[in-house]
């Protein structure tokens, strides 16, 4: 492991200042991904800024009736937060579908958004990978790609974003609050992560000198009809082959609003509001669900080992919507 220097930041302003002053600095919070990547020499920060002591751990209601998750609230504290469980059970379920109890106790909400892909080649420094080493080539496209993306890929990278939490946040239209040298700004979750394009080494639109301070959930939580369905190669502790965050707002047997986000299929949570809108004011039938599923997977491209994900994702969308529809509405 390469040596690095370390400093504990006292407040957000100091943290931003410190990271702005040093291009080779990285924030560290739970460290559940960064430390692993440092050990295998995939990430090589020369300086770590420990932000675990910043006052960003609270979960509280916002003025507009939503909920603000502090960036440093742990995944466990978030998933089991009473408000989250009651008003945003989709998020709670998504978080609990990921990692393990031990990891969720350490991992923070902000860090969860910034975790790196789990592509085999990204993790092996003896293989070419454009995300790890721009210009070296993508080994996955013609190599082993079972876990990798089928949507929004590029000739440079077919990595997926591994987060479950982010998929639920996409369906819920969360907003990411960040602070940089020029002050605060808000990034809608849909614009937070990027597609790989020709710059796959850049995962998100967060600038290197910015820090996530909170994740805002809008008032609408779809607590009556939701499902987080995660399909994977074993029943726990595996990343999604395909996951679906599905949420419905019903008026009798008519859909008022549908939200669908897919995980495990792209470089970011995959959400198509235009396709969702096809379900608005429609009956909640399997045919309509299949129609929207087809729309979601339009243009999907397999790379051999992951071809199956296209059909699997369609079926998962249908099943997730059915489950969301049929769930017992808690009064």
């Amino acid at each position, binding site marked *: 492991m*390469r*040596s690095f220097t370390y400093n504990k930041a006292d407040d957000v302003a100091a943290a931003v200042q410190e990271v702005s002053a040093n291009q080779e600095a990285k924030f560290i919070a739970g460290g559940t991904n960064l430390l692993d990547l440092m050990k295998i020499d995939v990430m090589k920060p020369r300086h770590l800024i420990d932000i675990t002591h910043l006052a960003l751990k609270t979960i509280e209601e916002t003025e507009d009736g939503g909920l603000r998750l502090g960036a440093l609230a742990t995944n466990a504290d978030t998933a089991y937060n009473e408000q989250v469980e009651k008003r945003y059970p989709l998020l709670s379920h998504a978080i609990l579908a990921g990692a393990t109890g031990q990891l969720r106790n350490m991992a923070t909400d902000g860090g969860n958004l910034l975790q790196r892909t789990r592509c085999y080649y990204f993790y*092996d420094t003896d293989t070419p990978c454009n995300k790890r080493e721009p210009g070296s080539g993508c080994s996955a496209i013609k190599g082993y790609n079972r876990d990798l993306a089928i949507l929004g890929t590029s000739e440079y990278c077919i990595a997926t974003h591994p987060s479950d939490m982010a998929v639920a946040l996409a369906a819920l239209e969360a907003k990411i609050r960040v602070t940089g040298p020029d002050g605060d700004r808000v990034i809608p979750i849909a614009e937070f992560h990027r597609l790989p394009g020709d710059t796959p080494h850049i995962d998100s639109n967060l600038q290197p000198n910015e820090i996530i301070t909170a994740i805002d959930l809008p008032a609408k939580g779809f607590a009556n009809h939701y499902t987080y369905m995660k399909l994977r*190669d*074993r*029943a726990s502790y595996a*990343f999604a082959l395909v996951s679906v965050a599905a949420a419905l707002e019903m008026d009798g047997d008519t859909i008022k609003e549908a939200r669908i986000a897919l995980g495990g299929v792209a470089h970011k949570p995959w959400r198509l509001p235009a396709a969702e809108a096809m379900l608005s004011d429609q009956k909640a039938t399997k045919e309509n669900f299949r129609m929207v599923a087809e729309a979601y997977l339009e243009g999907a491209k397999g790379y051999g080992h992951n071809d199956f994900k296209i059909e699997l994702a369609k079926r998962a969308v249908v*099943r997730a919507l059915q489950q969301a529809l049929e769930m017992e509405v808690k009064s």
Partner: protein
Amino acid sequence: MIGNQTGKPVNRVDGRLKVTGGAKYAAEFTAPNMAYGFVVNSKIAKGKIKSIDTSKALALDGVLEVFTHENRPGYVWGDKNYQDKDSPPGSPFRPLYDNEVQFSMQPIALVVAETYELARYGAILVEVEYENYSFDTDFEKNIKQAYIPEKYKSSKPPEPWGNPDEALANAAVKIEAEYSHPSEHHNPIEMHASLAIWEEGGKLTVYDKIQGVQNSQQYIANAFGMQQEDVHVISPFVGGAFGSGLRPQYQLFLAVLAARELKRPVKVVLTRQQMFSFGHRPKTVQKFALGADTDGKLKAVQHDAFGETSKFEDYSENVVIWPGVLYNCDNVKVSHKLVALDVYTPLDMRAPGGTTGIYGLECAIDELAYKAGVDPLEFRKMNYSEKDQNEGKPFSSKELRECYRQGAEKFGWEKRSLEPRSMKEGHNLIGWGFAQGAWEATQKQAAAKAVLTTDGKLTVSCATADIGTGTYTVMSQIAAETVGLPLEDVTFKLGDSSLPKSPLQGGSWTVSSVGSAVKLVCDKVREKLLQLAQQVANSPLANATLDDVNIEDGKISLKNDPAKAVTIKEALVQSQGKSIEENVSSEPVEGQQKYSPYAHSATFVEVKVDEDLGTVKVTRVVSAIAGGRIINPKTARSQILGGVVWGIGAAMEEETVMDNNLGRFMNHDLDKYHVPVNADVHDIEVIFVEEKDDHVNPLGAKGLGEIGIVSVAPAIANAIFHATGKRVRELPITLDKLL
């Protein structure tokens, strides 16, 4: 021998040490002034190292040395010096021998530094230039070049009997099928590690992760031109091995090399990723052609296996012996060819050949039973083998029918309908599958020593290993029972090369071999005890023979008058302060060669398969085992549970995936290489049927380390067929194969 110690579900005698951290594993030992080595592995699969620049690593303050093929000392390098007790025929891999790269992730340098992190950092800084050669890692592409090895590591496939071609041609019901089993890595939780301590005078003490300390001892002595007695290998605990510790691994060689050169202790621990850089279960393709008559009587078996090996050693395992062991058939023809690839040599992994061969055979038989329209369990009963047809010998015992009966009853098999897709529950198709299995119950030569001190404490020892199987416990039980002492007065020592000679811990032969030696040496202690008891003044046992007495609960008493007794402590007073000390070497029992010794299993499985999504849940497993006398039902059950869980993994999750562009296994960590987690494991019922065996060994016990896994994956695959009507002939059965 129905004893007062064996047969009891006693807790592991080392359990407390393990759960309190008191049990030390190889990587946990330290020594004063110890340095750390970190291995640099090859990036390419085949070629030459054109240059290796270690200057940047060496420039780091605290890096002591970087060993490569360029500066390694000149030792003896003959093949023979690198062969160990589990080597296949061929030329063993010799770390840092020359600039040739034979497989991806080959160790090519060792960075030694004052701290582990520094060594790991130094390893990053080693710069290597390669000359790439083309390589063969694609099994399917190379299967055309499969060959019959000059010499099999395993037993030579049996010669054909009957007229298999003709019988097959004439069979009323026929199937042909090809089954594929992927490469798998052992993935014990404990990583391979060695600490080599160089001592003045050139002696070595080595802490090693190994399934046989004397194998490491011999290997080091041969490779470094040392006297065996100058090498002391210690390995008191092993955190799982499953065969990966049968052969000394390269970290041992490198640690010893560095310790000798630097004249200080050196520890080398492999990373999880590096655990994928050596032996593995070979990818194996099996072709079957089976024939039966319309009633379901097996008429012909043709079983051809193609197993992966390396380009430098001919690894083979017993893949094709199973038709002759498990079925009664008059016309059988089998073959086993090797497919040599540019990979490290495969290595025995839990039930090598059995896991693979029985998977293929039991699925193919299920296909044939279906084609004949016969219930799969009925089919097995109709074609039950009363003798081992490969060897032409009767079994030493075989209560497999009782496994069928008890297993079927517990599982509720009689309620099964033959028709696939006949049970449904919501989105789930339900399937019930069956498979049977066998595994050798061999006895090897083993030695043991017993020391009974005057305070009545018994220490028995043998250089075997406890790889988590419960060796410490069952040996203590056998010794305590034989000498008539409470379990807490008995200590069993293992994992030290200076102890009496032991075979490798593997092959399910430890209880049989070491247990028999322990029994034998303790029998000698009994004799001595009786002699001493007879010297007690007015001894009531004065005229008794060993047959006349019971020795239990710390007393030697007359069988026909138990009140007449001498306590062991009283007897020991007669030894005038001297311990009783006995040594034995135990050989396989006389007449054993007349029989074929196997343990047997019958596995019943229920799966639920989501019809739309392809997800499979193994909801119930009943595993009925005929394993001879069970010394400890608790540790025995754990062995079978472990086998079943691994069977679930093998059926649905495990596969090391080769990237043929890079010639490299790519899912080399526990994130990408899936083994079952708790959530994958549901109801498992283990049944041990009563099985008396007077031939297998003096204990009447068969090993249980491997019989638990062999029939699980095929039973799951057969259950998935019953659920879905779809025959997936390639493991693992991941959800995409069922969409």
